């Protein structure tokens, strides 16, 4: 059963190269696991790896890697941006410039979406290949009120899961969460169940525990910065790094379905591997 389902995933993953509108409705039952993996050697990305080069251990059990994709699969980039009061002014200018730079760096089949959060959470632009529409939405977003960072991040994760493409979530916040309903633990649990890879930029004095955990659990990275002048460079470096990642897929066997699955990813020929530390399955 699981082998057949796994093949469905492979098929759909491949089909996204040509057919974008697929919906991931089947994904609730699929047991295949996708892991975004960055492999570097002396800081430089390692290219040309095949399934045979990877070893994936799920709860210590070596798995059969089904598929490794590199660059072929378009990206779904979800920007989740803090639009609370404290962003107003120069920070907003830098954020818009950085957002534009990132959107300009997308390829033709890549999609982008914009989620902003104040005390409420807004979908300013749904996933689309029309980068201009997302740019326009970013230009129109205005800061106001408190910061629902956790609610915003969660909503963006769900948007990221709404399409079968590889989802890159970029969260930007300059503040502490002051108005979310969802507890951070609950959202981190959702992140552990998700294929979305989260990167985050935390500006200023805010303690960024939530963003640190979010990026850690999803295999992304947290940038903690004081000033936003170089935000464009950070956004572009995130995009560049994500493009260098392999999408490795396997169907778990020899492990219990539910609960936390500790992942270990290795590359036989050596190198530094960055991937999410595990995933959560079952309720």
């Amino acid at each position, binding site marked *: 059963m699981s082998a057949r389902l796994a093949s469905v995933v492979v098929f759909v993953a491949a089909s996204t190269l040509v057919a974008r509108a697929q919906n991931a409705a089947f994904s609730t039952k699929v047991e295949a696991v996708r892991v975004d993996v960055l492999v570097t050697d002396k800081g430089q990305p390692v290219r040309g790896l095949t399934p045979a080069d990877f070893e994936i251990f799920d709860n210590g059990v070596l798995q059969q890697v089904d598929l490794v994709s590199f660059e072929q699969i378009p990206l779904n980039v979800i920007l989740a941006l803090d639009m609370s009061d404290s962003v107003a002014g120069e920070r907003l200018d830098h954020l818009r410039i950085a957002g534009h730079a990132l959107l300009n760096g997308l390829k033709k089949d890549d999609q982008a979406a914009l989620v902003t959060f104040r005390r409420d*959470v807004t979908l300013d632009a749904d996933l689309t290949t029309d980068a201009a529409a997302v740019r326009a939405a970013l230009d129109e977003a205005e800061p106001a009120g408190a910061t629902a960072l956790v609610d915003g991040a969660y*909503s963006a994760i769900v948007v990221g899961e709404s399409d079968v493409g590889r989802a890159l979530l970029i969260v930007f916040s300059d503040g502490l969460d002051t108005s979310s309903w969802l507890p951070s633990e609950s959202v981190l649990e*959702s992140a552990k169940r998700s294929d979305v890879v989260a990167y985050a930029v935390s500006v200023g004095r805010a303690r960024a525990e939530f963003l640190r955990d979010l990026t850690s659990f999803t295999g992304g990275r947290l940038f903690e910065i004081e000033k936003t002048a170089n935000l464009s460079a950070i956004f572009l470096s995130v995009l560049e790094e994500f493009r260098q990642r392999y999408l490795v897929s396997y169907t778990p066997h020899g492990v219990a379905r539910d609960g936390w699955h500790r992942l270990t990813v290795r590359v036989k020929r050596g190198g530094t591997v960055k991937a999410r530390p595990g995933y959560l399955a079952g309720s």
Partner: protein
Amino acid sequence: MRRSLAALLCLAGVVVNAAAPPVSPRIARVERWLKAVLTHEPGTSDDAFGAVAAWPMASVGALWVDLNSLVALMRNPRIARFDIRQPGQRVTQSIRYTPNDMHRLRILACAAAGLVQHQECLALKAGAETDGDLLRLARLAEASVRRGDANYVLRRGALLHTDVAMASPAATEPIEPPGSAAPQRLRLSLDDGFGKGLGQSAVHWEIARMLLDHVQPAGSDKADPAHDDMVRRWYRATAAWMQSRENYETLHLDRARGIFPDDPDILFLNGALHETYAAPHIQSAVHGVSLPSGMTFDLDSDHGEFRRAEGFLRRAVTLQPDFSEAHLRLGHVLLRLGKPADAVKELTQAIATGDDDLLRYYAALFSGAAREALGDFEAAAESYARAAELQPSAQSPHLALSSIARRRGDRSGALREIRLVFELASGSEDDDPWWTYHTAQARNADDLLAELIQPFLSGSDR
């Protein structure tokens, strides 16, 4: 009696300018203060209000000291020694005045207490050294005494400073080293989870509290604010006002609780205050600020603040078992303390004893979270769905429903609820009461204040 006092008033107006010995600016300020108390219409920004509001903080601090002396003299015109103790301090400080200042302060106390005709005040020739405004004040104070309330200036003075304090709650000046007998209050402004601007604030609230500390109930010759209904209503209204404006002052409710230890409303507001103190934006902002040496914010960890809140709210519901909003807040606090089963009990009580849609919304939302924490996702989803029905414009229940769907592996359900969240996106804080939960306990603050000042409005008592 009233006619003779009026006649005296006319005479005094002539005499006072010629005979009054020079006094210090501090005592002159006390006199101006009494005249402001006389003319101020509570709840308004009239000239008297404007005059007092314009005084520098150092002057207001000195006024606190001199009003302590004035009030002592009002109660006993013969005393000659003033030992001032700041709220919460053990050490007293002796205040000394020059003979001229002392004399003038006694005259002012005679007028403020409506005692111009009393033996001690007559001996001071208080009437002769009192101008028309002060004699009018004396007449009103005396009339109040005849009605059984010897607290005319105390109550009206407190209301004047209440108005000033409420008009510019965030006003601060640079911090100066403590040097006088007056209390020093530091105020931290918060913005989006950060402390911005630590400054020294004027002690208007301290003056109001101090004045009301000396209120004597009808028929008593001893200060006993605990048995005065106006003082009780003042603390309820002002504490609610502070919370409604996110203008927090622990001392205020500590004092209220000290006077009214068994008042469920005051215990409730204490609970709500400490519940708010546990919030991340307060914790982060306060713990991130460097205070001058020797000064502290009275703030515990978030867990400690929730524990404090639990204690106050438990007492409130013990004293008033049908206090639905106290049950609600207690349920939320218990949820945050990791006691979801206990939280469910309190929230069930809140729903059983209350019929307010707002409270039912909160109770449904918190019940959902408590049941989710207990692993009962079915019941949690039902609670959240009920919250969504009660507040169709709110995002929070749909975020919660989405999260539950996600936990259960139902990605399409999670997405469906998030789409609803996006459809409900709104800049209006009214759309989701969760966003204003930290001030909702004080939503009746303006009504309480209106009820408080109503007996003091023109025509009511003068």
